[in-house]
């Protein structure tokens, strides 16, 4: 589904971040990426989503057999890619409700489908709000403005459930969440997982992986994947730290 081959990425100021990175994600798989601060985890997530801030020097990224490199972020989203941001931005003046409606209908448009009816959207909103225990009043607020850390992350997962992506990248969605919120977020992810969606989960903690069982765990360090394996790697890291590798 997602194939990353020899990916080399730099910033606009030519600081090299990712070096010869390789990763394959198949349908229905959950990959966890762990690694010390500054190893390039968020950069990888942003590059897959199409952030124009990064320069791809070498290598390629393909999604559903299509080269992603020259596609705009909105085109990638229409193909079914989703990024849950580590630091979701605040957008004053646009309600979460309005935002999600626009996003859904833009996706419909990109796929040459008819816009969804307001009734249908409302039904989906109610259904997903129920899963994430979100109050409907919350959806009327401006996107992320004045949201607590936990609310921001929950709003990200809510958007994910609304958009039903085929591949979701969760960039430290668990950071700053309490146990209850973590369980709710995991419930959201698992509800989508049942529908054969794939996930890349970037995290620092084993804790989230107790609730969302990964098929693979990769350790990213200094722009490269230095170790890959099953869920047991995460447990070892939790116990011994990165020096262990």
């Amino acid at each position, binding site marked *: 589904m997602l194939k990353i081959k020899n990916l080399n990425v730099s910033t606009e100021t030519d600081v090299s971040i990712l070096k010869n990175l390789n990763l394959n994600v198949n349908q229905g798989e959950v990959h966890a990426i762990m690694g010390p601060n500054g190893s390039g985890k968020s950069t990888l997530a942003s590059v897959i989503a199409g952030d124009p801030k990064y320069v791809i020097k070498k290598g390629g990224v393909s999604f559903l057999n299509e080269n992603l490199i020259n596609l705009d972020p909105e085109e990638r989203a229409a193909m079914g890619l989703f990024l849950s*941001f580590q630091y979701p931005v605040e957008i004053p003046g646009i309600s979460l409700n309005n935002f999600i409606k626009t996003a859904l209908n833009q996706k419909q448009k990109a796929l040459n489908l008819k816009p969804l009816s307001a009734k249908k959207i409302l039904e989906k909103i109610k259904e997903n709000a129920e899963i994430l225990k979100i109050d409907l009043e919350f959806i009327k607020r401006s996107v992320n403005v004045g949201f607590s850390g936990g609310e921001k992350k929950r709003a990200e997962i809510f958007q994910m459930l609304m958009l039903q992506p085929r591949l979701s990248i969760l960039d430290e969605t668990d950071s700053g969440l309490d146990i209850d919120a973590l369980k709710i977020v995991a419930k959201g992810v698992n509800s989508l997982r049942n529908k054969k969606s794939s996930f890349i989960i970037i995290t620092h903690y084993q804790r989230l992986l107790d609730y969302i069982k990964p098929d693979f765990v990769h350790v990213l360090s200094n722009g490269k994947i230095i170790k890959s394996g099953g869920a047991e790697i995460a447990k070892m890291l939790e116990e011994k730290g990165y020096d262990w590798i």
Partner: protein
Amino acid sequence: MIGFKKNVKPRFNFEKESDFILDFLPTIKNEDWKYTNLKKYIPKSISIQPLTTKCNEALLGSLKKNGHEKLPKKNVIFFLDGVFQKDLSDVPSGVKIEQLNGVENTVLSLYLNKTGANFNTLENNSYLGFSSFLKNTRLVELNSYLTNSPYLLTFKKSYKNTGRLKIVHGFSNQNSFFNQNRLLFILEKESNVLMHEEIINFGKDGAVFNMVSEFVCLENAFLDFFTTQNDLTQSSLINTIFCTQQKNSSSNFNVFSLNGRLIRNNILVDLLGVESSANVVGTSLVKSSDHLDNFITISHLVENCKSNQFFKSVYDDCSSGSFCGKIYVEKGAQQTEAFQQNNNLMVSKAASVNAKPQLEIFADDVVCSHGCTIGAIDEDVLFYLRSRGIEEKEAISLLISAFLNELISNIENDEIKIELSKLFLKNIDV
């Protein structure tokens, strides 16, 4: 200083009227006009709107027959070329409208002093022109000379609107005219007024509108004034509002600017009575090579008054603009609360804006603040929207409308709120 006297003709001797007008106007050497070169926006072919009380009958006939989208049937006061049109107006009870022209002994040259000591002498119409004490007067003087007729609108004691009152200024503009319009509003004690002003240019050519409105808010009066500035004929508008406020009165000036070759708003409020408050806000979307200049001064002359200035503008294409907002606090005007905020969103690299916040404070027990931002669309926010599948163009439109909507969403009157929000949405065109 030239006073307001109808029968005194200017003694200048110019070959063309346009020479006279251009020579008389302030230049960029005048500090208050530093960022707006008026001469650039006044057509060379301009001539002074003829002084007449007779209006374009054909136009009036057609308006009576066909109506106009901006002219509702109820609650409307309509002026054509500065002359009140009774047949096309519906003046609510409690509002008196009088022509001040021809009243020989109108003590128009009697300017009140800044403390407003003679405020109760309503009968001699001594209000008109008093604000000329303030700076910025050349265009006001020109208006005093050249206006067809000034009108006095009095809102009776304890008057209260049911819905908004529309004030519509129509101009026939057979040629490129320099139009003058002069109104004086007196809000008597305890009156509560909701007004919405609009201009209609019936001519094809770009004209210049020099509008002067003076407001006198007496004790406990409440004014909610809206003006929509949206002229599609490449006309220029110089809109001057003077407002003086007595004890415990409140005023809200809401300026919405969209299209117009040049829009200059001079809004000068004097808080003369204790516990009075003024709120002057504006939202604008400036496009093509249009120029917008908001020039605001709020003077706190006595203690315990509040004021707020908040202007938000979006500049696109190669438009330009300026915001100059001043808070003046007189010595002794203690316990003043005065705020000012100006946010500018630059959508195009060719657009420019000058912002000049000014505070002059001579009292020592006050709360005053000012803030000003000029910025482009945040790339991170744009990426966030795009990563959710929203096309770049749509995302930019959405961000512009969100920026502009902040003040519009605060409007209490639903009719005006919906109308303005639709109008802005229609005009966002990335």
